[in-house]
């Protein structure tokens, strides 16, 4: 599906990528899923059947994702055009932003975000005037480089014309006023929020290229330290990190880079494909940069598009020599450990590779969603094929948008030695079950590249030694689920299948 930047709102992931938020199976059955018939043989029109049950737990929304991105662009102001509740977690976004700045050695600032704080009156008369006033106030108070506006369920339902207000006020305030359409109810998965803000910056901030910067590589990141520049600098390249923690200039020059890539294609697929389609910035097609195999291919692809093949080979050789001895030691200690993953699919893909290199068995994964394809050249197929080839199948490889009850059921079935989680909700759950739990919270870069294998290995050893906390906790707390229900889950009659 070609990307349409003319439309004010991005098409949702389910429309573009066939995104699923409920599914049970194994990694191998997702390979080339878009080219196969229904995996469960139900005869329906879909290639993969989503399973959905009557029970669901609080998840996350696209607007939350947009908050996370927009508030971490330095010099930007976010206006949440919504009742105050949509901004209730802003201090949490702030914590993430402060952590990112500390890790990047930047001067620590708080997020700058206004809520139009709509009330009952505005639901009746509309929120357009409060929004206009908020834009002026944001400009006056903060002198921002850019003003983002996020929409919410309520403002979507009452039909506020946010685009017109943005257009009308932009000239007055003298900086880009960028509407981001991200009403929570429009998409079943929060990752649509990544696409929504990428779509918005493509329409309003990325400039028409004035020159080609042949040594510039776009890297689409989340919060966390810059682990990319130290690597790329060794081969004479500059990393253009976008969006978390970046300056507005980093976004403006996206169109001038030699190529784009990421550590997570679930995050980056839209922006990468759009930049290639609109400006010819090459969207790299390697599997993500995890484990020896992934990191090697990723670097070689970068070397190829920038004419640095020889330098890359030297770098790879140097990095291998640096990390291999320690990885061998870690492998000797970790071999055979049974680990379960609970995280976004992009992270799961990464961890499967890293753990594979460490001799750890990935005995299952709960992924927060699955995109059947990615935008542009389908890196989903490339990635899954790569993982199957190098590290074998993973089963169960389930999909659920958070959903602690499903995580609990899977852990009861699989009984892993340790759990790695990137999601606050699930960390505490596995810990309450007494399972040593290693969080990937906050720092998204821990598993990246060659050093990532050492990072994860060291952390695993540490977590295993720290396991007493979880054991003690489990002995004294209860989960909210009925015993009979959990028992029915372990006997192979998952609720979801029963009611699908």
């Amino acid at each position, binding site marked *: 599906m070609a990307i349409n930047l003319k439309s004010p709102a991005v098409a949702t992931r389910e429309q573009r990528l066939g995104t699923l938020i409920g599914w049970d199976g194994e990694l191998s059955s997702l390979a080339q899923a878009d080219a196969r018939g229904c995996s469960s043989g139900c005869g329906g029109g879909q290639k993969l059947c989503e399973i959905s049950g009557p029970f669901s737990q609080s998840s996350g929304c696209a607007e939350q994702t947009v908050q996370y991105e927009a508030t971490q662009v330095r010099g930007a102001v976010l206006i949440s055009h919504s*009742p105050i*509740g*949509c901004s209730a*977690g802003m201090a*949490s976004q702030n914590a993430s932003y402060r952590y990112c700045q500390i890790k990047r050695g930047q001067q620590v600032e708080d997020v700058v975000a206004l809520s139009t704080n709509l009330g009952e009156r505005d639901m009746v008369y509309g929120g357009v005037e409060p929004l206009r006033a*908020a834009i002026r106030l944001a400009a006056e108070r903060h002198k921002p480089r850019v003003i983002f506006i996020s929409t919410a369920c309520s403002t979507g339902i009452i039909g506020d014309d946010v685009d017109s207000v943005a257009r009308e006020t932009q000239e007055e305030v003298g900086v880009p006023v960028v509407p981001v359409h991200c009403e929570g109810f429009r998409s079943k998965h929060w990752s649509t929020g990544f696409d929504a803000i990428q779509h918005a910056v493509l329409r309003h901030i990325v400039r028409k290229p004035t020159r080609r910067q042949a040594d510039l590589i776009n890297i689409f990141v989340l919060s966390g330290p810059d682990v990319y520049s130290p690597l790329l600098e060794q081969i004479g390249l500059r990393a253009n990190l976008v969006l978390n923690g970046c300056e507005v200039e980093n976004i403006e020059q996206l169109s001038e880079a030699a190529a784009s890539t990421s550590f997570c294609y679930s995050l980056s697929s839209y922006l990468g494909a759009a930049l290639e389609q609109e400006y010819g910035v090459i969207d790299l097609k390697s599997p993500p940069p995890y484990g020896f195999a992934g990191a090697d291919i990723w670097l070689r692809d970068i070397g190829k598009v920038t004419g640095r093949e020889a330098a890359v080979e030297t770098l790879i050789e140097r990095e291998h020599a640096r990390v291999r001895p320690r990885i061998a030691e870690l492998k000797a200690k970790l071999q055979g450990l049974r680990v379960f993953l609970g995280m976004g699919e992009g992270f799961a893909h990464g961890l499967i590779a890293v753990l594979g290199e460490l001799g750890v068995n990935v005995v299952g994964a709960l992924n927060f969603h699955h995109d059947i394809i990615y935008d542009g050249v389908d890196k989903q197929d490339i990635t899954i094929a790569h993982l199957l080839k190098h590290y074998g199948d993973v089963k169960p490889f389930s999909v659920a948008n958070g959903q602690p009850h499903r995580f609990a059921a899977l852990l009861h079935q699989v009984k892993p030695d340790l759990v790695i989680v990137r999601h606050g909700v699930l960390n505490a759950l596995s810990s309450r079950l007494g399972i040593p739990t290693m969080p990937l919270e906050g720092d998204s870069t821990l598993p990246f590249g060659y050093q990532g294998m050492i990072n994860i290995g060291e952390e695993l050893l540490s977590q295993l030694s720290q396991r007493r906390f979880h054991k003690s906790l489990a002995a004294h707390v209860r989960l909210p689920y009925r015993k009979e229900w959990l028992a029915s889950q372990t006997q192979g009659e998952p609720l979801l299948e029963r009611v699908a």
Partner: protein
Amino acid sequence: MALQSIKAKSPRKIVAPPRNGVIEQPRYACGIGAMQSVSAIRRAIPVTHCGPGCAVKQTRGIAHINGYQGAGWAGSGSAPSSNLQEREVIFGGAERLQQLIDASLEIIDADAYVVLTGCIPDLVGDDVASVVSSFRKRGAPVVLADTGGFRTNNFVAHETVTKALIDQYVGDASAPTHTGLVNVWSLLPYQNTFWRGDLTELKRLLEGVGLEANVLFGPASRGLSEWKRIPQAQFNLVVSPWLGLATARHLEEKFGQPFLHIAELPVGGEATSAFLREVGAYAGLSERKVEDFIAAEEEIYYHYIDGFAELYAVSTSMLPAQFAIVGDSAYALGLTRFLSGQLGLIPARQIVTDNPPFEHRPAIDAAFARIDADRPVIPDYVEDGFAIQQLLRETDYGHKPPLLYASGWERALAKEIKATLIQVASPTNGEVVLNRANIGYRGALTLIERTYSAIMSPVS
């Protein structure tokens, strides 16, 4: 007699927010944030009928990032939620809610399931009431609190929840009044970062003078079994400037239960002893028992104050003299009384951030004015962080940097004005809050410890 002449407050030259509108750095949540009031009751679970991100945002803001409290026995993200989609916006979500409640009853092991509504069902007009009542007719303990995100904040919605539980779960009075049993309505659970420690201290104090206290929320409460006994209480005790009054009035009407309203949280020896005497007199407790308890507590309390005096009295001229406070009305009032009345500090700026309903503001103003007849304290009611910090910046603190009792949002401002920041307001960031209290005899000592550790640590 003013010990130091206090300059008039500087005129407020803030960039005024339009209407009553814009909020930066939110300090409270929306109506559905009252889901945390449900999570604060043992064996109760919130069932949220709303969009996919609503419940998680409230929990993160009120429970997680605010003192790292954790979200309750069911844990963060465990609240059943209908995660409404476009389909339900167009065709209505009543059927989805019906399914969700059914499944929640099957999967979640709770004694009460409290349905809270967000913006979507309130805007599209879901008939949530008939869905919930169909479950109650079957005898299922399902309660509806119509919190409608945009309608109000989590303070007001908290009493929507308490009244809903009273009407739909507690039911009618069946047992006779139990003399000496009191229902306590005070701080907003989770939202006030120190609610667990404070309610525990409040219970200890009330039981010390011979009452049995239903604190109803948190680890010091037995949870829903306590709620069942609400109708038997001799009276209701509202310990807060305004929160809880609507519940007490509701109970007065419903069960003919009288209530005692004490606007000031009891913080420190003086206020706590006065509080206990007032409660004792109202409840008809043995004066001797009340006085014995007070005497024993005061002996311990003033032992510590006496020791502290060797720091305080010796170093006063080096220590901050003035303080500003930014917090919910309960803390702004109670802590100001303590800091001013007991420690003798000078109130420079008091900012109330919980948006008390307008009908309560004259009484809150009067309560602040009573703190010191020599120099009446006039509170500001502001919720927007930018405006709050402008006020704090423009305040004259005299010749020394002040103490600033505020939230994590004031960290940068505190640095800027060289204030010593003590976080007592939501969101409290970068600080773990478990069982610490700030009220009563014991809490006040903890507050003194925190305050003067923060002052002494950088200069020691």
